[in-house]
């Protein structure tokens, strides 16, 4: 009797296969990302570099160790973080189009970066020396400050505003307000600074060095670790906050942890890679569609695998293997992501994939 109540075995088997398939896909994409690029490196030499074997061409060792390995690891981390953040936002707001940036985290980061790059024309060299000193890291710092500020604001406002929709509208309005300030900065800035700012806003997995990668990994691990505590709470939130409350959950605490985890995750990605769209909104949908479930006990591991794979694939395409050209990562995610979201919206039968909105 009990047997019939748990997941039907056929469904469980299918899910196990899917998990296995994605693990293989991730391994394949990982090796391909190391092998392909402006120069192709044979797979056996990639293996040689990874295990530290002698006798691999030195330029290849350099390329793999200092360019491709950090890039693919950045892509993996960013993919996981964006997907995890997106899933939590979609569940909390019970909205299929919610994404990691819906509360304005990226607006805050953009503002920080805009002030760092563009604002220096006003404050006359206050940031300029710092930028030349810290190099790329000062952008990370500016973005982190901006994202952190918004994060603090969200957590603060989240305590007072009970209605999630109100929170959503506040986030949107905050985004509009910051983009107005950014526009103002752009309007009065020199063209080369504007270009520097646009390049940041295109997003990139390439600029992250090993030191930064360590920091990023630590922050993202913390964010994902927080989410790993929440499958039960997130499941309860699927029914709405009132139901969650009557099932004995501490909704205030739950909401705080969700906001903290989602904001830290999206903030970390934006700080190190720039604002990267679509992965966060698309991956949770892919997971729900493939695994045919809204249960976060399955969705959380699923989006971690799918997020890593999708992000690596996007990064690989952006490198345009075999050419000297590199596309901005946002171009790739948007080019593939936009049609995907259109497809999700059109295909959505009465809640067949996620929410009846």
């Amino acid at each position, binding site marked *: 009797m009990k047997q019939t109540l748990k997941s039907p075995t056929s469904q469980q088997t299918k899910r196990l296969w899917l998990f296995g398939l994605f693990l293989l896909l991730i391994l394949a994409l990982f090796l391909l990302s190391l092998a392909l690029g402006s120069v192709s490196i044979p797979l056996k030499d990639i293996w040689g570099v990874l295990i530290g074997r002698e006798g691999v061409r030195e330029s290849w060792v350099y390329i793999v160790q200092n360019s491709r390995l950090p890039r693919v690891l950045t892509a993996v981390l960013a993919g996981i973080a964006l997907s995890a953040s997106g899933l939590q936002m979609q569940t909390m707001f019970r909205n299929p189009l919610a994404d990691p940036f819906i509360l304005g985290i990226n607006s805050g980061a953009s503002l920080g970066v805009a002030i760092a790059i563009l604002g220096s024309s006003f404050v006359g060299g206050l940031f300029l020396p710092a930028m030349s000193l810290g190099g790329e890291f000062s952008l990370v710092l500016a973005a982190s400050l901006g994202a952190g500020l918004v994060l603090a604001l969200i957590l603060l406002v989240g305590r007072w505003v009970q209605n999630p929709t109100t929170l959503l509208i506040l986030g949107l309005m905050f985004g509009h307000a910051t983009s107005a300030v950014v526009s103002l900065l752009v309007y009065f800035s020199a063209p080369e600074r504007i270009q520097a700012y646009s390049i940041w806003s295109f997003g990139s997995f390439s600029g992250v060095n090993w030191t930064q990668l360590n920091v990023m990994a630590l922050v993202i691990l913390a964010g994902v670790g927080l989410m790993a505590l929440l499958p039960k709470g997130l499941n309860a939130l699927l029914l709405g906050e009132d139901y969650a409350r*009557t099932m004995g959950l501490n909704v205030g605490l739950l909401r705080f942890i969700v906001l903290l985890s989602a904001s830290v995750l999206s903030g970390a990605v934006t700080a190190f890679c720039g604002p990267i769209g679509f992965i966060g909104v698309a991956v949770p949908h892919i997971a729900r569609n493939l695994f045919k479930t809204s*249960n976060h006990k399955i969705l959380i591991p699923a989006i971690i695998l799918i997020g890593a794979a999708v992000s690596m694939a996007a990064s690989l395409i952006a490198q345009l293997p075999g050419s000297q050209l590199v596309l901005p990562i946002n171009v790739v995610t948007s080019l593939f992501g936009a049609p995907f979201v259109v497809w999700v919206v059109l295909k959505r039968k009465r809640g067949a994939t996620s929410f009846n909105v």
Partner: protein
Amino acid sequence: MIEPVLQTSGLRIGYRNGGKTPKVIADQLNLQLNAGEFVCLVGPNGVGKSTLLRTVTGLQPKLGGEILMSGKKLETYQPRELAGQVSVVLTSPISVGAMRVDELTAMGRFPFTGLFDRMSEHDWEVVHETLRVVGVEKLSHRYVHTLSDGERQKVMIARALAQEPRLLILDEPTAYLDLPGRVVVMNLLHDLASGHDKAVLTSTHDLDLALRHADRIWLMDDVGRIIQGAPEDLVLNGSFAQTFNRAGVRFDPLSGTFDSQNSGSKSVFLEGVGPEVVWTRRALHRAGFAVDEEWIPGSPRVCVMPQNDVITWQVELVGQTITFTTVYDLLQSLPK
């Protein structure tokens, strides 16, 4: 004496608007709900039924007075402990897809499982038993979004029951259902109270069903008073009519339903027996006729004659007799 599951004394409910004077919806509510009892909360739209339900569930703070759940003050309960006392089915339909019926029902075990929601054998047994009691065990592997409204409502009730509460509170559980679906749900709620010793409290707009199924009615009027009593008592002492009578609508204690009050000046004499007469009377009322008990010379005389499977209506009007086979034709022939 048995301790009531829910008891309020001097309860004041309403909303606090930003710390200013709170908006009081009802005051001095002294209510009591016992195990095994099915109570329907009825009242006109907007009198605060949902507010009362949300307040006694702990979803909304009270403004004053006292709420005792199993003899203990509501505000002293830990959320988890309270979840073992009372569970709910809320008005708005849930908007979750890609979730199976058994998964949704298993969420009722949340108060009893740990951080990672590991279900024990016993937990699954409760889920299974609950699905059986509600009569949806055949649906347990279906996805919730593929169910009909009635089936989904039953599953929501199953989820609430899986919480093994002493008190089950439902806010208009029949709102989105067709009439047979409403009857099924009300029957189920009555059975849960009488057969499983739960206290069941539901708000509803289906007065007719409430009168038939409820053990007691809490009748809430638009000044926030609540009158308690068996449905029949409230009908016979006129409370029911008083609360709901409005211009043009009248509660008819004979039929237990609401009639439109547009019985006109023209009168008709109606004779016959059985359901045919009841429905003919309704048609005549609608057409604006007062149906007389005695024949007044000069007014039309309608005679319903069911014979075998054919029903005919004979109308005597100014000396001539015409026979009809449908109510529609009958109404057309009467003088406007």
